[in-house]
């Protein structure tokens, strides 16, 4: 007999013929009297052997002394096993051997089934052993030649060791888990509590303010992002100074006295090598992004002297074309000193012009005659315009949806338009209590941030009419410009009191690298908050914000005014001939006309 015997694995057990079905099934270790064993061994080609687990069990099974194998072939094996037991509970060992591929001492087919003792308690093993012994006795008694011929198929419980044996100790232990819902009751209440906790924690950790960049000597009038570098930000102040900032170091890396008077607009070239500024001195200047060499003077690459004041500038996203606005919208080729084309519609000054980042030939402008005008660069005339109740200060295109733009209006609201249907804004965003001066989309296109004269900035989801967040500090005055950084993580705002402030876009977000578990937890919490957001308790906590007194009282006032207006309207409808007073929805109310 060889030890260990050849490996044989089969989920199906075939009872070995000689000892009859019961025996083959139930007794892995063939123990018999001397004469019997010899004949049997001869027949089988290999005699009985005792696996460690059996011998271990045998070592413990005191009441079965007669079971000790009598034949000499058995002795060494038994010795091994007993040694093993003497040292201590060898269960790990045993299991490994039982399932381990190489040294699995599987003898005749069907052994595995009976030896398949995976339980970790020796008590069980003992019981099993004893039972087996009894069955053996029974089988021996009923051992007949007829029974020898029968074969039996037994389906057995089989487990693949690959599923739970780890290859190296560095592997994580796979913990089997029972997902039976009865074992994990109260899922809704539990998740509710988790959501509640997550919401509370979100509020606890909501500390959005990161840094303030100071250095300007006048109010910051405009901001620009570097298209290729996240850390670089440009800002123009009301004293004509342009500063370039490094956000990671939070300092100013370059200062240019670009204009006399205000720097009205600033934009970077799409490649990030240069930027353009316009100022009150009726000039358009192009500057190199990199500073001049040591000892050189700061000088613009090009300077274009215009006839009128330029109030805004934006660069094409792909080509060497930029647009300025003032009395009219001019589209310039970078190489030329005269505009390629000038477009006007009406006679008022245009405050802002923006290129569409996706459909790059489109651009929109907003004028102080309450218009928002859309242009196609390839045409000589404007596309269409929409007239609102009040003046729009800025517009911003959605970087993920080509035809959506949002206009920051003087009437405290922001209007998100679909440029294909300008008569009704997609959404009216209202929360500000003063004129909205600037708006910028998150690069993900899901949210935008607005800067307002009420000394606060707000973050709105695109599809919500109410803001999800409001940022303010005591020292922040009227916020004139705001930008969402290109990685969608931060928000910058420049305000009257000469500072540029850096905020987190998500107030409670943890900065820095997250481990996978942290990430998973964050995601889960986020999902929970989403799931239970309608629950009043959670809603109340999630919505709670502290506001400065001025804003708060303003909000109250606004509410009263709005309510009064609504009441009046209702009354008017009520007291006039039915149908004579049309019911106008809030969205349509603010749109005066759409002109093509």
């Amino acid at each position, binding site marked *: 007999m060889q030890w260990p015997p050849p490996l044989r694995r089969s989920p199906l057990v075939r009872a070995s013929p000689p000892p009859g079905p019961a025996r083959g099934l139930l007794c892995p270790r063939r123990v018999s009297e001397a004469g019997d064993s010899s004949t049997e061994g001869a027949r089988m080609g290999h005699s009985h052997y005792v696996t460690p687990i059996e011998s271990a069990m045998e070592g413990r099974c005191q009441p079965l002394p007669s079971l000790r194998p009598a034949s000499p072939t058995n002795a060494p094996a038994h010795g091994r096993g007993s040694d093993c037991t003497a040292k201590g509970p060898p269960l790990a060992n045993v299991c490994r051997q039982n399932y381990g591929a190489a040294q699995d001492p599987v003898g005749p087919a069907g052994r595995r089934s009976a030896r398949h003792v995976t339980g970790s308690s020796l008590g069980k093993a003992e019981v099993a052993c004893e039972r087996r012994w009894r069955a053996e006795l029974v089988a021996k008694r009923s051992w007949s030649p007829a029974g020898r011929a029968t074969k039996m198929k037994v389906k057995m419980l089989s487990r693949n060791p690959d599923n739970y044996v780890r290859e190296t100790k560095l592997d994580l232990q796979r913990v089997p888990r029972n*997902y039976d*819902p009865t074992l*994990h009751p109260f*899922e*809704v209440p*539990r*998740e*509710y509590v*988790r959501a509640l906790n997550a919401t509370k924690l979100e509020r606890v950790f909501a500390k959005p303010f990161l840094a303030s960049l100071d250095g300007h000597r006048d109010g910051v009038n405009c901001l620009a992002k570097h*298209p*290729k570098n*996240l850390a670089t930000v440009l800002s123009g102040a009301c004293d004509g100074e342009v500063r370039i900032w490094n956000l990671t170091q939070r300092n100013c890396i370059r200062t240019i006295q670009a204009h006399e008077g205000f720097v009205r607009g600033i934009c970077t070239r799409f490649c990030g090598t240069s930027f353009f500024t316009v100022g009150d001195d009726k000039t358009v200047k192009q500057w190199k992004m990199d500073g001049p060499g040591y000892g050189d003077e700061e000088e613009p690459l090009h300077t274009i002297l215009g006839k009128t004041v330029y109030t805004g500038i934006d660069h094409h*996203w792909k080509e060497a074309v930029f647009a300025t606005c003032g009395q009219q919208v001019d589209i310039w080729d970078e190489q030329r000193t005269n505009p390629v084309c000038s477009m006007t519609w009406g006679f008022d000054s245009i405050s802002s012009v923006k290129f569409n*980042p*996706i*459909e790059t*030939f*489109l651009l929109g402008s907003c004028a102080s005659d309450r218009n928002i005008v859309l242009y*196609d660069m390839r*045409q000589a005339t404007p*596309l269409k315009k929409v007239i609102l109740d009040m003046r729009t200060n800025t517009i911003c295109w959605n*970087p*993920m*949806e*080509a*035809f959506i733009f949002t206009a920051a209006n003087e009437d405290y609201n922001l209007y998100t338009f679909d440029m*294909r249907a300008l008569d009704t804004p997609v959404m009216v965003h209202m929360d500000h209590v003063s004129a909205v001066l600037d708006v910028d989309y998150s*690069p*993900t*296109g*899901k949210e935008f941030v607005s800067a307002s004269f009420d000394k606060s900035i707000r973050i709105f989801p695109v599809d919500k009419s109410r803001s999800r967040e409001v940022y303010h500090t005591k020292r922040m005055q009227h916020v004139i410009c705001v930008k969402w950084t*290109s*990685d*969608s*993580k931060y928000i910058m705002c420049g305000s009257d009191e000469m500072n540029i402030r850096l905020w987190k876009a998500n107030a409670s977000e943890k900065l820095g690298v997250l481990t996978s578990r942290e990430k*998973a937890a964050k*995601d*889960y919490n*986020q*999902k*929970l908050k989403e*799931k*239970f957001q*309608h*629950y*009043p*308790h959670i809603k109340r906590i999630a919505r709670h914000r502290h506001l400065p007194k001025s804003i708060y009282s303003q909000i109250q006032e606004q509410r009263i005014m709005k309510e009064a207006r609504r009441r009046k309207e209702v009354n008017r409808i009520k007291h006039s001939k039915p149908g004579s007073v049309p019911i106008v929805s809030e969205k349509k109310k603010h749109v005066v006309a759409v002109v093509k």
Partner: protein
Amino acid sequence: MTANRLAESLLALSQQEELADLPKDYLLSESEDEGDNDGERKHQKLLEAISSLDGKNRRKLAERSEASLKVSEFNVSSEGSGEKLVLADLLEPVKTSSSLATVKKQLSRVKSKKTVELPLNKEEIERARTPLEQEIFNLLHKNKQPVTDPLLTPVEKASLQAMSLEEAKMRRAELQRARALQSYYEAKARREKKIKSKKYHKVMKKGKAKKALKEFEQLRKVNPAAALEELEKIEKARMMERMSLKHQNSGKWAKSKAIMAKYDLEARQAMQEQLSKNKELTQKLQVASESEEEEGGTEDVEELLVPDVLNEVQMNADGPNPWMLRSCTSDTKEAATQEDPEQLPELEAHGVSESEGEERPVAEEEILLREFEERRSLRKRFELSQDAEPAGSQETKDSGSQEVLSELRVLSQKLKENHQSRKQKASSEGTIPQVQREEPAPEEEEPLLLQRPERVQTLEELEELGKEECFQNKELPRPVLEGQQSERTPNNRPDAPKEKKKKEQMIDLQNLLTTQSPSVKSLAVPTIEELEDEEERNQRQMIKEAFAGDDVIRDFLKEKREAVEASKPKDVDLTLPGWGEWGGVGLKPSAKKRRRFLIKAPEGPPRKDKNLPNVIINEKRNIHAAAHQVRVLPYPFTHHWQFERTIQTPIGSTWNTQRAFQKLTTPKVVTKPGHIINPIKAEDVGYRSSSRSDLSVIQRNPKRITTRHKKQLKKSSVD
């Protein structure tokens, strides 16, 4: 546990009997002095006593109600009085008959002729001539009063004879000391009584309870019978309490307190205390004693035992249930008088000599009383002699003591047996009246019902005691009753009363068939079980004690009633007093008017918990729960089940596989930190050529965008 209860009841008893105890003790001490030892007689007595414990034997033992001392045909000796047998006594007939008078005369003459003594012979003088004289003599005789010499009773005489001068002095000093002690004691008691501190009294009470319990324990060990007696006393106290209205809150004091209780915490406490005391006193302890009516099982025995309604008062304390017994008694007082002498010796046999006077308020006939007293003293003397027997008569004592021991064993066994059967009977019978009485006053009845297990337990403990002795000492021949015994073991006690009834029947049969009492328990019953049982009981008892004041069911019912009342729509009374009729102080609007202006509230819908007695369903909105409920359907949903479904699906890893969890929790937009997100391009969404060069933004639903994008692109191209 029961021990606690026992202690309480003992304490209560001792409080009641505090003063009564003292004189009795003295009596005892006096009686100790008179000693008479006669081994034979003593043994005989004991045998009698023991055999009288068994019901049948006792009945056979005919009690002589004659006025003389014990005169039996077997032993001719005068007993107890210390005087010698006189021939005259023997000759003396109950009534003087003329036929014998001549013979007597002759005899006396013969006697007198032998020697002439001066003063004259006693017999001559004290000879009763008339029936009246006879009677007087009898009385005097019985009371051991001196007939001739009026100075000393025989006892006194004997004691005088026994004492020398020194002894007498010592005795006197002793008595003086005792008197002084008594006065001290009384003074002390008075002083203590005056102390106002409640805490002091509390501590004292506790101490006393402890002491009483201890004593009882000891007594139980030393003398189970005496312990039983003690239990009987407790039972008696209970009965007294039940009869009286002492702690029922119906007195003047209690009434005044009841008025005050609403405002005064102390008064409330006092009332509660009183009530609890009442409860405590009326709590029923299972009293074990050695009368065995169940052994007879037949009517006549019970009649004998419970002769009268008054007998309840008389404290045949072992009666299982006075209410049950009263119904079946229809006997006269003669039976009682016959019975009493029988029972008393039993008591005496167990060495309990006190509290006799109280126990028999109905014994009218002086003679009988005297007789009992006499007999008692006799017994006592026996016992004393037995206790302090000198090592003189060894051979007799050896055999005698052996016999005594064996007899004792039998006795204890019988005792045990009696307890057991009584317990069963009591439990089976006691249920009926309790249940019946439960309806009018369930809250008062409840503790009674609940106390059942402990009562059983106390008895069991006693049983155990007896049994152990039995097994240790000797193996007694036992009739075949082992099977039944095992049935009686505590583990199957919770079984239905049906079984108990059955058992009872079996016992009866057995008793009819066998003279010997059956054994109590088989050895096979493991003691561990009992221990467990005891623990369990302990636990139960503790819980019961902890929630003794709580009546949860009643509270709940009350609460429900209140809830129902509160939920009922209220009537609106619009009556204006003085409107349309005279008004003013003391004038009420007329009934007619009230009826007219009372707006009856419409019947509300039936309550949902109308048919659910154990449930209160609140149909109002709970504001505390409402804080966690969504009031209106949130916007994107069109039906509530849509919303509910989103809520019901858990997303946590507790309920989902890891992969599913990850999928479920992936945010809609994932951004990589430090990456610039460029505006979307047509190529990015696969419109022209899908070369997703820079994918720092992964859109979860790009399709929508694509379609829109397409449209837009088309449009723009058209433009």
